[in-house]
């Protein structure tokens, strides 16, 4: 039983002078300053936040989901400590979804300015005479505006933790962006196609804490359905040997990726149904057609072929 909950982290951006100017920071770093340093808030006259840094672009087409709410939360927190601070949020689309919408309204009421930018015309950040200058197009006045803030906060993307080795080890699929992929988006949202392995949290996709908790509870419940049983029945998809046909040629013994087939005391191949993983390699390799995989017997697969493009149609 494995629950994959490897989490995610905040992308360290490589744009907007991050790492080059100490006044440029990510939302998490900004939050830390707000909480840990009592003088920090009072010193902020102007703060600019840029949304969708590293998300919803070519490299990472997904929305990181938490950044809009985090930006609104931190803007409100700063406003609570220093009501005179001006906060300008440069956004593409605000998604304070669910029950967080009232915070967005509150932020607007408290005077946080939200300015939309287009992905083709991202804000320009540069250092001018030792000051941080941010130039962007303000659509309501239809002019390019330059602001000199005390702090520039980047709402950067949520990325999965390094998990390639784990994915290979467990043989579970990941999306191109590195997040784990569930067995079915709607029907099996916390399962992997492999039995006994489940996924939850940021390992699966960007989401907020409430969603992570709900998904974690779901994964735990799914694991519980197995752990609660004293015995479990394995699937019926196992290979069965027809001893009459078996010539004990050892092909199956060599082919099986799990070394399940053995030659029994009667000199015939024997496959333990509990150990069999049901891949069907032995059935396909057996030169005497002595092995059939239940539910995928040759007659069944051939019947499917016949049913799809039946013979009557060929004659027509």
């Amino acid at each position, binding site marked *: 039983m494995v629950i994959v909950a490897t989490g995610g982290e905040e992308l360290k951006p490589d744009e907007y002078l991050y790492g080059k100017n100490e006044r440029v920071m990510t939302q998490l770093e900004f939050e830390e300053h707000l909480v840990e340093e009592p003088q920090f808030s009072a010193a902020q006259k102007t703060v600019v936040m840029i949304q969708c840094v590293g998300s919803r672009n070519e490299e990472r087409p997904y929305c990181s989901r938490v950044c809009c709410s985090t930006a609104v939360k931190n803007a409100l927190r700063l406003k609570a400590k220093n009501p005179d601070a001006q906060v300008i949020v440069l956004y593409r689309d605000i998604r304070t979804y669910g029950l967080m919408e009232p915070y967005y309204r509150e932020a607007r009421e408290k005077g946080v300015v939200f300015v939309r930018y287009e992905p083709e015309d991202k804000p320009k950040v540069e250092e001018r005479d030792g000051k941080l200058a941010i130039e962007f197009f303000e659509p309501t006045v239809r002019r390019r505006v330059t602001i000199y803030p005390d702090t520039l906060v980047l709402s950067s993307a949520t990325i999965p933790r390094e998990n390639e080795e784990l994915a*290979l080890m467990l*043989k579970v*699929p*990941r*999306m*191109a962006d590195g997040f784990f*992929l569930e*067995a*079915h*988006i*709607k029907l099996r949202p916390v399962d992997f*196609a*492999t039995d006994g392995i489940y996924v939850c949290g940021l390992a699966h996709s960007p989401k907020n804490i409430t969603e992570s908790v709900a998904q974690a509870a779901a994964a735990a419940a799914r694991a519980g359905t197995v752990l609660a049983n004293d015995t479990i029945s394995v699937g019926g*998809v196992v290979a069965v040997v027809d001893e009459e046909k078996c010539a004990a040629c050892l092909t199956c013994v060599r*082919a099986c*990726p*799990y070394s399940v087939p053995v030659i029994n005391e009667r000199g015939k191949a024997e496959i333990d149904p509990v150990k069999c*993983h*049901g*891949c*069907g*390699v032995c*059935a*396909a*390799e057996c030169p005497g057609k002595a092995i059939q*995989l239940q539910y*995928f017997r*040759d007659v069944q*697969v*051939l019947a*499917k*072929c*016949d049913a*799809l*493009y*039946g*013979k009557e*149609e*060929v004659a027509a």
Partner: protein
Amino acid sequence: MSEDDFEPKIVAFCCHYCAYTAADLAGSMRLQYPPNIRIIRLPCTGKVDVLHLLRAFEDGADGVYVAGCMEGDCHFINGNFRAKKRVQYAKKLLDEIGFGGERLEMFNMSAAMGTRFAEVAKEMVERIKKLGPSPIRGGKTKKDGDAL
């Protein structure tokens, strides 16, 4: 039958752990791909038998492909490599009898590749459209030296 109104019949043998899930994902993503593909699910492409591939052709399929996991990612360790070998072997047989080995192909994709599944479906339909109906359905057999 002209190339335009020829609708190929194609059978896809899909591994449960990758291509079959990818097909599902293609559906969830609402991707469009030609309706000429008929899927037969297998637990692993390692289960596919030359017998099954040939029977599909015998039943009148104009093209057949096997879609398994990315190389090295097989859920059952190495089933997709076995499938690859068998597909290559069957291609040779089809070439020998003038049927055209290019009517059969092996593809690899992961469960996350919904887009790739749709691409492969399109690719295969286009290829078979160019080749025309299968000789079993009255199409031309391929002789040595014929261009694709």
